């Protein structure tokens, strides 16, 4: 966002005429630029939450460096009365606290934006087309925070107070949000920070005259909703899916998913008296081990999972092929980040779409779920465990850093109404009745054989699991006909599971000649871009939001119904479109168009709108 390639600094123009009547209410973005590790996160969350508590739809995105302390970091809050919560490309109100980035941050603002800055930075001379406010943060923090060591952390809360005064955020909502953030146990810290908020409010009242047009006013669009990170919601999904084994290896941006799971499992899945756990969570030595343990656990009958990101997926490739071929249930949550290689570890991408669909050598296909929201992170985690056990296969959940690590408004997480589906497992009693079984025989016509779990107390229970060629009875075979029969049956499972995937979400625009297909977090840019296309260019567009791979039959119909179909990809190589090229009939592919963004920031609507309009113009 601050690279000059993406957003060249606007040339200084004449100061815009701001009419005080041109109030912009509940429709702007605030960006807070600080130094990583300076403790600004709490201040930013309080600011975001207080706007949310005023009933205004809001989103918060943390653009942070791959660093513990010292590099620039930006937190962007978008308030949108229309409910648009994608990243907004333009920043309307900048809080410049970081000397390192302040100059570039100011230069990249659009004309008419507002800037609150730390007085010593002396930014107001940089541009004449912005509204500048300054505050002496060090001077203000000293009297409210006697302990010098804590001032670095507390001074951030002063800008919350100043913004509250300038934007009209109810101080009572700030107080409420602050005390919720700190919790009962940290009341002293909350008091200290509340003092800093008040110092900011007082300073702004006495010293700053409102010049910019941005205001927050109460609405009623957030009642009952949550503010939650996707990783937390996914962890809760795993908890309510009844996960019993989670093996993982730390990697950004998926670590916070495993850590959230540890916290919830400690609270809800451990006997308070005996301390005995109904789960095992193991931090493995690497991703080879984390998937290996999960596969071993899935084989032995646990609801097993691992969570990782792209580099971990690359390491897991061999084991995923084994689980696919030996038909072992396992859930793999991939919180995608920017690659190839180490890439941009703290930035977002849908970079593993193609890879996860066909991960490992030889003939493989894996189902993938594409959650787009915390609710779907929750529900799809539950779906994934059912699918994995029902079809005895690895199931991927493709999240991304934007969804996993940023804060989202969410509907309350819905309690699973369906009982768990543990798949086809024969017990000792079943074996007694049947007199035996053939592990890899398709007795039900869906391609899925019956399995037994190790430890089943029956002489006929055992079978030998292997990654080598095998017969229906799980004995070793190198015969071509055995190989083909087996691998074709596994392909049939992939067809059978289609009917059990969450359905796509469609919105057909009357008279639309173009359609747009997205998956995952592209949803938010899409919701806004469709409105932009129709409002600004008179171009109605239908939209299909995919929730799973293999693609639903509705996708073909969607292609049939439209002259051109734009597929949104958050990667360079149009991976989602590429999967369609593999799977859709050739005559539909002529209609396929691609929209791609791969800069590492959450996708914004303007980028989508501009790319579609440019291609439509060429069409005409």
């Amino acid at each position, binding site marked *: 966002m601050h690279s000059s390639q993406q957003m060249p600094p606007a040339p200084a123009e004449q100061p815009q005429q701001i009419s005080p009547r041109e109030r912009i209410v509940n429709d702007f973005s605030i960006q807070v630029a600080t130094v990583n590790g300076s403790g600004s996160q709490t201040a930013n969350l309080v600011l975001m939450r207080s706007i949310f508590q005023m009933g205004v739809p809001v989103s918060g995105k943390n653009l942070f460096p791959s660093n513990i302390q010292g590099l620039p970091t930006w937190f962007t809050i978008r308030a949108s009365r229309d409910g648009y919560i994608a990243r907004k490309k333009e920043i309307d109100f900048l809080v410049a606290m970081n000397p390192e980035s302040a100059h570039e941050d100011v230069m990249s603002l659009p004309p008419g934006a507002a800037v609150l800055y730390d007085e010593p930075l002396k930014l107001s001379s940089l541009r004449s087309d912005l509204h500048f406010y300054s505050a002496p943060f060090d001077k203000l923090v000293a009297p409210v925070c006697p302990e010098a060591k804590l001032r670095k952390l507390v001074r951030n809360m002063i800008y919350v107070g100043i913004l509250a005064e300038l934007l009209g955020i109810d101080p009572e909502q700030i107080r409420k949000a602050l005390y919720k953030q700190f919790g009962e146990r940290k009341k002293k810290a909350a008091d200290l920070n509340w003092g800093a908020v008040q110092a900011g409010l007082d300073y702004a009242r006495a010293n700053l005259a409102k010049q910019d047009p941005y205001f927050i006013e109460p609405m009623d669009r957030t009642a009952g909703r949550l503010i939650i990170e996707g990783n937390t919601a996914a962890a*809760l999904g795993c908890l309510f899916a009844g996960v019993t084994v989670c093996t993982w290896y730390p990697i950004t941006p998926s670590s916070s998913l495993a850590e959230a799971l540890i916290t919830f499992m400690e609270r809800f899945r451990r006997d308070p008296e005996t301390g005995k*756990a109904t789960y095992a969570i193991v931090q493995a*030595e690497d991703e080879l081990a984390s998937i290996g343990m999960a596969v071993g656990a899935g084989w032995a009958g*646990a609801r097993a999972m691992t969570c990782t990101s792209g580099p971990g997926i690359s390491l897991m490739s061999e084991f995923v092929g084994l689980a696919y071929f030996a038909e072992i249930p396992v859930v793999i949550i991939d919180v995608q980040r920017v690659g190839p290689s180490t890439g941009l570890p703290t930035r977002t991408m849908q970079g593993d779409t193609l890879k996860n669909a066909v991960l490992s050598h030889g003939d493989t296909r894996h189902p993938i779920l594409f959650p787009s929201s915390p609710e779907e992170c929750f529900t799809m985690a539950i779906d994934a465990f059912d699918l994995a056990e029902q079809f005895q296969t690895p199931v991927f959940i493709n999240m991304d850093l934007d969804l996993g690590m940023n804060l989202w408004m969410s509907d309350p997480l819905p309690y699973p109404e369906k009982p768990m589906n543990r798949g086809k497992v024969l017990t000792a009693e079943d074996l007694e009745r049947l007199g035996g079984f053939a592990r890899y025989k398709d007795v039900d016509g869906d391609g899925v054989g019956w399995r037994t779990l190790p430890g089943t107390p029956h002489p006929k229970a055992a079978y030998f699991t292997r990654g080598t060629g095998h017969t229906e009875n799980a004995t070793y075979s190198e015969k071509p006909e055995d190989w083909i029969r087996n691998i074709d049956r596994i392909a049939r499972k992939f067809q059978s599971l289609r009917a059990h995937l969450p359905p796509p979400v469609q919105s057909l625009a009357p008279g639309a000649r173009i359609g747009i297909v997205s998956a995952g977090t592209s949803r938010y840019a899409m919701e806004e871009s469709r409105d932009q296309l129709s409002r600004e260019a008179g171009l109605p567009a239908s939209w299909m939001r995919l929730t799973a791979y293999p693609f639903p039959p509705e996708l073909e119909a969607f292609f049939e119904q439209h002259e051109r179909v734009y597929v949104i990809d958050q990667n360079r190589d149009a991976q989602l479109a590429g999967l369609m090229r593999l799977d859709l009939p050739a005559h539909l592919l002529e209609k396929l168009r691609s929209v791609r963004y791969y800069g590492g920031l959450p996708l914004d609507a303007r980028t989508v709108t501009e790319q579609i309009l440019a291609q439509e113009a060429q069409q005409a």
Partner: protein
Amino acid sequence: MSSTPATPPRVNRIGLDVFPYKGSKTTLCAGCGHNAITERLIEAYWELGIEPWSVAKLSGIGCSSKTPAYFLQQAHGFNGVHGRAPTTATGTLLANHKLRAVVVSGDGDTASIGIGHFVHMLRRNVPLVYIVENNGVYGLTKGQFSATADLGAKLKTGAVNPLYPIDLCLLGIEMGATFVARSFSGDKRQLSAILKAAISHNGLAVIDVISPCVTFNDHEGSTKSYAYMKDHDEPLHEVDFIPYFADIEVEYNEGESRMVELHDGSKLLLHKLERDYDPSNRIHALEVLHEAARRGEVLTGIIYLDTARPTFTEILNLCDEPLALLPEERVRPSREVLEQINEEFR
């Protein structure tokens, strides 16, 4: 006239003959050390009267990793990917800690591609029997040196190994295995006693078994050949195993033998040979291994034993029932819990 009644098959203490303890026919070379180890495993599980279905057999890739198909046909087996059986075995035990897991691995599997998983399994003290069928050579790929090949050992092609070997027993002791033994596939008596003790041990038992490869590493100049082992095998002690269910009064002379009681009440008698050896002394164990290596001898016997350290599944404090078998009501929290969580995020 009286007919001779057919001799009833011999049965073990749970009334099973040896058939369920056997497996499919071996596809390894005739004379392969691994086949002898398979035989000892069949005997050990049968003689201990372990229910075959209570065992899970796991392996990686290689000649050794094929062997789980050749014993305990009524136990589930999992022949996974190269070097990573410690991970699948760990996962298996997380899902069901009641299982008796046995991993059969080789020197390529354990000392090269899978060494990272091997040391972490040791560190965790995962409760399983880990057998390394060690022949110093990659058999399935036709005779390359492995990382346990001794310095100066010769391949059939005449190639000489220029590197020092990885000693899996030293590594095992350093990294936290609680039962470390070395044996020789040709020493029926010793291997049998060690295997039974390992099966009865509560914790990770690593057994490095020198197991000659008759096709690629049994020639003059090999340090893993039958002939070399015949000349260089140096037993630390004589090992006797007395199972907990045996109706035997154990008598021994303090000065001549040591007795160790194992987790299930079985007893291990270690009879003194040239010296009095205490396998609970970790530093001494490392010392005797280094000394033997310097002399070019292969020290065999139970080198290290710690019967007190908690196992990985004990550390995790798992509930009594296997996690794999918990019903929905034990693993899916209630509607009220979800409502409470929702409220926390409002």
